[in-house]
């Protein structure tokens, strides 16, 4: 299913697609959003961290799916009808990768100008500041703008992987 | 615009010649040996023939001889592509009826100026 997006038009700035995760609203650069799919069957991959649910077939390409709730170690929630997979283009040094993130629901598209993004305080723990581009306030809501490239960088995943290897 | 028949069994040379001349606005037909060139020449009358000498099936000298027997090609300029050490080839070529020669290696400008010289 493809979601219809309402865009709030503004003069300058980047557009962000926002989504809900455990009652928080996060945003990703809309230029990185390739498509939005409903949640479907995923093939699990052995010996990978819990938050990597597995891979799916996206028109012939194998795409890994990451559950951000588990990634951020939030309380897990069973997948429901609004559960959605956002397919993103992740840019790394060597090449571009396609990855999907599971979120509770998709919200809006907002224009956020550079100066509207405030630097985040150090949350500590899993939500490292590297993953966050900044915080913005829109309509009295706080939006956490994510840096996909750092968040979904496979080096990151590999680092977590070796740490989590002992679970076997 | 004038039409030119470019003959050489070396694809890279042939293409370079064809490209250079096409850029200058000439129509160019390529042939990879003397026999194919002769066939092409029989089908269409070219304003100029440029041919390498050493080719399989039919070499340049033979090609020139054959061309000169065709009524349309009695006075057509035919240029040989020769190397500087091929003195005997020049003689043989002239005896066969060649107009002149272009010495290899040549750069595109040299090729063009010679062609323009002959076709003006």
């Amino acid at each position, binding site marked *: 299913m493809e979601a219809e997006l309402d865009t709030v038009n503004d003069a300058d700035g980047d557009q962000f697609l926002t989504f809900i995760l455990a009652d928080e609203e996060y945003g990703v650069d809309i230029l990185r959003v390739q498509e939005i799919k409903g949640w479907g*069957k995923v*093939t699990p991959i052995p010996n990978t961290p819990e938050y990597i649910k597995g891979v799916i077939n996206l028109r012939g390409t194998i795409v890994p799916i990451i559950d951000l709730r588990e990634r951020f170690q939030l309380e897990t929630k069973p997948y429901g009808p609004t559960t959605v997979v956002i397919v993103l283009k992740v840019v790394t040094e060597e090449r571009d990768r396609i990855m999907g993130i599971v979120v509770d629901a998709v919200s809006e598209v907002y224009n956020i100008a550079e100066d509207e993004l405030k630097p985040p305080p150090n949350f500590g723990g899993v939500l490292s500041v590297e993953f966050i581009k900044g915080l913005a306030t829109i309509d009295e809501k706080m939006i956490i703008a994510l840096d996909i490239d750092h968040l979904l960088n496979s080096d990151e995943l590999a680092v977590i992987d070796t740490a989590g290897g002992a679970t076997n | 615009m004038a039409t030119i028949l470019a003959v050489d069994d070396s694809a890279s040379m042939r293409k370079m010649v064809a490209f250079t001349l096409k850029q200058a606005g000439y129509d160019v037909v390529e042939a990879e040996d003397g026999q194919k060139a002769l066939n092409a020449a029989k089908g269409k009358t070219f304003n100029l023939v440029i041919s390498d000498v050493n080719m399989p099936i039919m070499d340049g000298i033979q090609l020139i001889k054959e061309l000169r027997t065709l009524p349309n090609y009695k006075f057509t300029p035919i240029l040989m592509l020769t190397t500087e050490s091929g003195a005997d080839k020049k003689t043989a070529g002239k005896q066969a009826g060649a107009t002149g020669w272009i010495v290899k290696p040549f750069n595109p400008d040299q090729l063009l100026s010679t062609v323009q010289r002959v076709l003006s």
Partner: protein
Amino acid sequence: MSIDMSQFHQVFFEESFEGLDSMETGLLELGQGGEDPDLINSIFRAAHSIKGGSGTFGFTAVANFTHVMETLLDEMRDGKREVTTDGVNLLLASVDVVRDMLTAVRDGSSLDEERVGSTQAGLEAMLDSTEEATGTEEGQAKIAPAAGWQIVFKPLPHLMQTGNDPARMFRELAQLGDLETEVDLTELPPLEDLTPEECYLSWKLSLHGEATREQVEEIFEWVDGDCELNINPLQPGSAKNEDTPEIQDEVPEKTKNTQAVSDPAASKNSTTTQKSPARAKSGGDSGSIRVGIEKVDALINMVGELVITQSMLSQIGEDVEEFDQASFERLRDGLQDLERNTRELQESVMRIRMLPISFSFNRFPRLVHDLSSKLGKKVELKLSGEGTELDKTVLEKIGDPLVHLVRNSMDHGIETPDQRVAKGKSETGILHLNAYHQGGNIVIEIEDDGAGFNREKITAKARERGVIGENETLSDEEIDQLIFEPGFSTADEISDMSGRGVGMDVVRRNIIDLGGTVEVTSRPGEGTTFTIRLPLTLAILDGQLVRVGNETYVVPLVSIVESLQIRDEQINTVSGRAQVYKLRDDYIPIINMHDAFSIQERHGEYADGLLVVVEGNGQKAGFVVDDLLGQQQVVIKSLETNYKRVKGVSGATILGDGTVALIVDVAGLIRLSRKKSNSTLRSVA
């Protein structure tokens, strides 16, 4: 106008390498006594082409080098020089040098300049030894330009028939200065006797200005021999001069240099100034493919059929208001056609990447020739099945392993002529390379009639290295397989032919990486045969689908030995940890895929499961699965594109229902499972 020549470079490189190959084949034939003039001529032509092209495209050092080769070949084809073994060998060495030079230019790789220099010197020395006085330099004194030139130009009647036109030449002269022309009609016959194709006119020309004699002569260069030409200086201040001087001045024939060879020092320098492309490509890997036009036509036909089937199917969807039996059958037929079209299209496309193995086999005549003289052995190379096709990438990667095996056969297999005669064999050993299709694979056999394996020596060496136990006895086949163990070489000296015993295991590793297998059988005293099996293509796999828990996995068919129902009583536990299954006389380790892949759902006890006996890297193991599903050809999709390499998994595929199934890396899983069982205690289910 400046034209970017680099667009022609790739074509030039391709055709030059082909030319070098044909030169090599020709020279080898020549070396075996074939003094066929056509052969020498074709070798000459190839060198000539490369020389011409490299000169044109600015690869001066290559042009200079090949020029010397060409000169030598020219003498041979003119009969001025005898074709000798030394000459052929020197030319063969030169072919190698040119290959290196062209590769260096194309890829920016390093070049052994010394070798270039010494080979070129060798060629020149050979030329010099019978060379007469070389052509003299042009000794044209630059004549100071007079006030101009008086030119008497009398074409011979046939001049026009060379395509030369006096009017054109006069136009060119006019560009050098002020030109006055006076035509002489005295030779003109009456109209009825006139042959329009002949030239009866002659001219007196006065060219005023500062043009040099060379410039004037150049304009008449082409018609030398087709006319009478007198060029004399105009007296300064003189106007048109009617007098023609007595002295006949021939346009001097430009004397040519027969030795246009630059000395080695110069060629060394010029190599560095050559344009070399920035990219550094891995050896021999070309980004383009030559495809026979029949293959492309076949492809076009298949696509055409596919389009027809597709429109037929969509029409069924449109026309029909209600779906009745007839339209159902049409639909089914249409789908069958679609399946057939798709399959044919797939096969057709894969065939495009296929090239005959001759591309790889072609290097062996030369290799065997060189090695036999180096080793002092007589070897006859037989090639069969050169037309057998395989995937381009596999072809490129199988080259080195094949070379290694051939070297091995020549070095260790085939004996010296004396040894052979002593054994009652013929002096000349036979090395046979054979290729053919079998099943979905290509089989390559390398067979020699040499000494075969010295099994005692191998066994002793294996014991010495601890590869096998002191008291372990092995069957003949098992001993033969030992040569693939790392660090294994029974050569008494380390010959640099086949390497230092790092050879065989690397060869096997390379072949396995290509998805293939290699085996050896030996008949002591009689010979040895290596058999390589490779898949025809890397992208497709014949797989056995298995169900483990709720997931479907694909096990490569080529790795499956057999599948059987698990019988509880055959399961044994070793050291309280690892489990083994007794299969006839062997105990094979059991790998529980649920554990290996950390799958939670488990369906019942072992007894309900199936054991898929697999072999990876020479080791057997049994995978416990819940069910065997069908067998099918699967397309291998990469996990690494968007994710990364996962141990125990060699890739993924998309099943008919659109879901993803992981492909098991058999050898990897065996390794992984062994590591796990070594590190943790496992509970028996």
